[in-house]
């Protein structure tokens, strides 16, 4: 068995947690329990988990507006996350950040980012710190097919090559930037080729296949730890829901999502593979599913019961360390 059972269980649990978390977010948002703009990552779980499963808390990731999955994969507490997206004072960011600004520095989660392309320059910084301090840590940025076109992203790629930073640029190509097709926004035929042109190894993988994605990222991460500089990994995937929760998705083809949910569900694909290979039992995974449903149920209940911030103390605090 090429993967340890414990590893497979962790991978499954993590992906399944993301799925359940996102599906509950959608439900709670629709029910009015989550305010603001929320971008769910269900469908794209395999990439987040493949990227983060081997990382330690001192390895850094920088995320996007669609960041819940990355947080969970990086080990953030789902209870604290749910409270945060609900805007509660015991949330990961005291309710001041919300879904688009969720962060957990202790876990090496440098923040979701509501600015498309805001993350990669910052993740270069994390990688630069690792390089300068000689920690052998790596840093990963999550990017989209859309954010690939932001100048900040491209600058960051070039700088990562120039300074040989241990930075893995993960591109989750889910085919859309809001309601714009990836292949409209990207003038090139292949983002992977475009990124290779920057002078870094660039791989294209099927992001619905956890194992293929994991294997590619593992190589890149090891190269980065060894001082070999940055890598680009483009992983094809499917966004199961709207750009934001509530998006009517008029731009999507008929049955597109229905079909994808059938044939391109990374969780189903994972289950099918591990069962077929005899690596895990369905029953084991079903048991995990149940645990997770209960865990997220509890996160929601705790979230709804959690205290709200108090403007008299919380509005003005945390702007500066001192002022």
């Amino acid at each position: 068995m090429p993967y340890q059972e414990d590893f497979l269980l962790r991978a499954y649990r993590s992906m399944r947690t993301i799925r359940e978390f996102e599906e509950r977010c959608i439900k709670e948002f629709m029910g009015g329990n989550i305010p603001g703009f929320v971008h769910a990552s269900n469908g794209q779980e395999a990439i987040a988990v493949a990227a983060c499963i081997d990382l330690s808390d001192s390895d850094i990731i920088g995320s996007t507006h669609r960041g819940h999955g990355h947080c969970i994969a990086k080990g953030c507490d789902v209870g604290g996350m749910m409270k945060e997206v609900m805007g509660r004072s015991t949330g990961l960011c005291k309710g001041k950040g919300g879904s688009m600004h969720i962060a957990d520095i202790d876990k090496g989660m440098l923040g979701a980012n509501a600015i498309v392309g805001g993350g990669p320059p910052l993740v270069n910084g994390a990688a630069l710190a690792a390089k300068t301090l000689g920690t052998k840590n790596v840093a990963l940025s999550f990017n989209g097919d859309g954010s690939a076109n932001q100048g900040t992203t491209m600058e960051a790629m070039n700088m990562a090559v120039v300074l040989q930073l241990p930075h893995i640029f993960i591109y989750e190509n889910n085919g859309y930037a809001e309601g714009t097709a990836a292949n409209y926004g990207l003038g090139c035929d292949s983002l992977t080729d475009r990124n290779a042109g920057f002078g870094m190894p660039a791989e294209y993988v099927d992001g619905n296949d956890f194992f293929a994605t994991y294997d590619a990222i593992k190589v890149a991460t090891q190269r980065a730890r060894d001082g070999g500089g940055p890598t680009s990994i483009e992983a094809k995937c499917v966004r199961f829901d709207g750009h934001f929760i509530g998006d009517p998705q008029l731009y999507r083809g008929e049955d597109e999502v229905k079909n994808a949910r059938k044939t391109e569900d990374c969780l189903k694909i994972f289950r099918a593979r591990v069962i077929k290979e005899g690596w895990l039992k369905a029953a084991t995974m079903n048991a995990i599913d149940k645990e997770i449903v209960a865990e997220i149920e509890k996160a929601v209940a705790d979230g709804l019961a959690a205290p709200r911030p108090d403007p008299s103390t919380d509005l003005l605090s945390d702007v500066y360390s001192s002022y």
Partner: protein
Amino acid sequence: MSTVHTKGTEMTTNSNDAKIGGKTSIKAYREALNDAIREEMRRDPTVIVLGEEVSGGAGCDGQDDAYGGVFGVTKGLMPEVGRERVIDTPISEAAIIGAAAGAANNGLRPIAELMFFDFIGVSFDQIFNQAAKFRYMFGGKSKTPMVIRGTVGAGWRAGAQHSSILHSVVTHIPGLKVVMPSNAYDAKGLMVQAIRDEDPVIFLEHKVMYNNECEVPDEQYAIPFGEAAFPRQGKDVTIVAISNMVTHAIAAADILAKEGITCDVIDPRTVSPLDDEAILESVEVTGRLVVVDEGNPRCGLASDIAGIVAEKGFFSLRAPIRTVTAPHTPVPFAPELEDAYVPNVDKVLAAVRDVLGA
């Protein structure tokens, strides 16, 4: 009606503009903007719209014009004039603004959208160093007739990076005009002027106002820049408010009116140019000034106006100027915090009572 403002004429819908003849309809702020842009595009083939999702659905299998802007302001334009003039772009704000500015110098009248004005950060150079400065740097030998539209402001629980109202930053920049309509009537008239204007115009739409309705003339009309509106007139206190803060200023004035306190509410409508004459004229009568602004306080519009009055209207003042602004913090996410962040009626009332008590 008070006679504080010599320029003031009978008001339609919060505005003091001369009534436009012809039919009117009840229109939302969003529709009024859409009307303004649509009619100008029909009238003038050089008007184009560009930005992310201004139509929506580019390259997709589903519907075209799927969004019409994420707030629906440009909905329906693309089906009428085609993708050549309503242009969905990649997520490249610097390139969007640059394309607009370069096109404006070459015969088009582009309306570029920053989906959220918070995205100014990645495009600021093209705005303040390029578009704003061309005419001056080139010795007056160019014109850059372009509009940059963007949604601003808090209230949607959108968090720190999607809720800013950065009008003070652009107001600081010579070469830009800055427009902030507070109602549908002004939105239409100011948008028409913005499109016809020969200079770069920053047009800031407050996201909580898109559904606000009022009576709007069906025909096109342009509201000149630099002329304030006087939604309430009075003699006791001058309240200057902008964008959505006008709503709170009017509400406060109406409450105070019942107590016999009359407020002169001034909505500058354009922050650059600013109708400082109207403000100074009013303070001459009232001797008291409250400025209400959703922006952050430091180097913001509220102190800008306070500074102007402290310099040019000092001898009219009978009490300290009071500014009501957001605090010196980013916009928080949690609803309770965001509500405490944004100035509201109570804070306006408190400030007015304060300057009156003084």
